[in-house]
């Protein structure tokens, strides 16, 4: 069933408003997960899905969550793999988006620290990566993350806490500090 001219005009106007309101957020969301070229594609693809499913896009401010979820699916479907995730880390090492306007030495140290964090983040399982990105980079309230992930805000509290602990352990491991893999119990005379 096709849309009438009036419907099309309404849909067009809705899409333009959504696009204007959330273009940068969606691009930033993609850029925080995949490299720049892929992020441009991801953003475009996300809005194309929104265009084709404009009647499904919420009319209120939950539209951004809908777009994030769509972008997440686009990334998961087309880009997310260990190799491509690694490509983001490598790309960021080579050309960080962050504009550090400090002294050159500070920039170098800063970039190394960021690379370490991104490397460690890359080694977490996808669910941990996502909840941390949503909480820390997207700065979504835990209630909204819960709505995105289908769990309670309290569950998000726990997931963020656990994921942060795992990220910290990965950072410590990378830094050569004891990573806590030693068993707590050692059998006397055991193997």
């Amino acid at each position: 069933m096709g849309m009438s001219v009036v419907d099309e005009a309404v849909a067009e106007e809705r899409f333009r408003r959504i696009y204007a309101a959330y273009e940068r957020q969606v691009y930033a969301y993609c850029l925080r997960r995949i490299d720049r070229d892929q992020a441009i594609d991801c953003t475009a693809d996300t809005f194309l899905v929104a265009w084709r499913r404009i009647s499904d896009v919420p009319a209120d401010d939950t539209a951004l969550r809908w777009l994030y979820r769509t972008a997440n699916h686009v990334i998961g479907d087309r880009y997310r793999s260990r190799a491509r995730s690694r490509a983001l880390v490598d790309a960021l090492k080579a050309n960080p988006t962050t504009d550090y306007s400090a002294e050159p030495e500070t920039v170098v140290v800063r970039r190394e620290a960021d690379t370490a964090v991104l490397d460690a983040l890359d080694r977490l399982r996808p669910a941990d990566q996502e909840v941390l990105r949503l909480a820390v980079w997207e700065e979504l309230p835990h209630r909204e993350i819960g709505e995105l992930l289908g769990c309670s805000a309290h569950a998000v509290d726990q997931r963020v806490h656990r994921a942060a602990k795992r990220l910290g352990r990965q950072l410590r491991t990378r830094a050569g500090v004891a990573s806590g893999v030693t068993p707590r119990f050692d059998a006397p005379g055991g193997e």
Partner: protein
Amino acid sequence: MVDTEHVLEQMRAANPAPSLEQLAVDDLDLVRNFVARERSTAATPVEEQPQMRPDPLGRRWGVRPVLVAGLAFVLVLGTLGAGLLLFRGFDETAAAGFTCPPGSTPDQPGPANQPGPPDNGPMAYEDGFESSFATFDAGSGQVLMLMGDALWTFDVCTNIWATAPGPPWTTAPRPGNIGYMMDFVYDVDSDRAIVFAGYDDVVRVGSYEPATQTWTVKSEFVVPDSPFLWLKAAYDPVTGLVVLYEPFMSAMWIYDVDTDTWTEVDQGSPRPGSRAIEVFSPGDERNGFQLNEVFLTYDASVDRLVAYMGSTWEFDIRAGRWEEHATDTNLLQGFGWWPTAEEFVYDEANQVSVFFGDQVTTYDASERRWTPQGGIYSRDTRGVPPMIYDPVNERIVMTVGATNELHYRRWPRSGVIAYDVATGEWITLLDPTTE
């Protein structure tokens, strides 16, 4: 101790797109052009391509417009289709589960010397031997551990043991009772834990409803002329039914606890052979063979049963087909050393099946690869107790004892430890009771 606030601050600083204002305008122009073009392409037949500015990146849509427009059309439909599929998948996998109440400290050891399952038990080959099997009640966040005629629960949010009503029969192999316990599995669909037990050619079944703490004895299942039965159970979340594999006859059934019905599964060919080995045992027909262990779990990442029976087998429940994969058995020390009760469980968070014999080893079914993990914990200390996957805290939980001083004569269960596959970290949830 990891300072999570500091870690989060480090991550915040490493944000690849820290400010929306810093996003490159050129990038957004590319997005706008692409969206505008693909929208018109998708909505109407391709007539002409809009004038585009030269693409500094030489991106694909600036090279061969007609071909790219066609590809884009497919891409849009594909994206839409994939999006719809993914939306479905997202919703299905995002079901909210039990979480620990606010203020819980699941990583802190529980109160010392609290009452718990007894550490001492008879030797395995004595009549009174009480094997223990555990499963996880995801509805209330509790480990359910069945030992003979006692049911213990372990709360993974408080790390405290408690008792619950045991089954209305004992599981020690004495005449007139239920016989050997074979497996204990949680049926999420019906919110019941189901124990399978028995001996000779009879399987006895009991179901436990945690919400009401009541047991129900189900019908006996008889396999005529079978000299021996030993069932391994796995819950299939797709059908909401329990799958049982019997390694003596290489038979398989699906059990529906709601209707108390058994349905034999056609496993096709090839399929695993019998795990029974004939041994010389004069005067005892029943003990004329030895049954090698079978480890079985349901792996949601591939929607297959994964079993280790000398080699790795995967069973496609939907297609009724086994596949065998060669396995480096050196990676799996401890397998088959009955009665250590090494367990094999699926770790949902890490999407691997986890085996623990002499050490933790994971099986990634998507890559058909076994990988030894960093954490090693001697079975001498662990003894025979079972292990489960705790989906609330996303880690493996198992019971342990304090000492191996009485190796083979002591089956410690009061201590509880957890293993986090993601980090390789062992966590003490409860120190073993000291004597």
